[in-house]
């Protein structure tokens, strides 16, 4: 892996999604944030897995961004990529 590129992974519980349209909207909105490398939202597991640059985003800012969209976002313990 490129040593200059820093990436962390966080898993955020998201409540209030009911269809794939909600999932798509979150992926679009959060995916275009600065420092977000990748986002995967699961409707079944009600969570979002986000790979991000810790220099530009924190788990808190990401959780806030989802919360701002009108979904209940609960931060779980951030776990860095092994």
């Amino acid at each position, binding site marked *: 892996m490129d040593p200059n590129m820093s990436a962390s992974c966080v898993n955020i519980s998201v409540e*209030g999604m*009911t*269809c794939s*349209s*909600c999932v798509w909207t*979150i992926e679009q909105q959060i995916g275009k944030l600065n420092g977000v490398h990748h986002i995967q939202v699961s409707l079944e597991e009600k969570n979002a897995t986000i790979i991000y640059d810790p220099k530009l985003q924190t788990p808190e800012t990401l959780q806030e961004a989802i919360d701002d*969209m*009108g979904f209940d976002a609960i931060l779980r313990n951030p776990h860095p990529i092994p």
Partner: protein
Amino acid sequence: QQLERSEPAGASPPPPTVPSVMPKHEFSVDMTCEGCSNAVTRVLNKLGGVQFDIDLPNKKVCIDSEHSVDALLETLKKTGKTVTYVGPK
């Protein structure tokens, strides 16, 4: 003898402003499910000072508020949905 009454001729008083009547605005929001409308409900409640009705089948949100149309638009756009201002109601 006639009673003297000072009545301004022709000048009608300005209509009284009733503060309880708030402007109504209608927005079209591209909502597809309960989750979408719940998201709209949440962002509007966060803004505060609004009364609103959500018509999910017609994708319409009718808001009663002192906030400007721009402020309401910005708030609705936070949900990531396509939002257009229909007009006052």
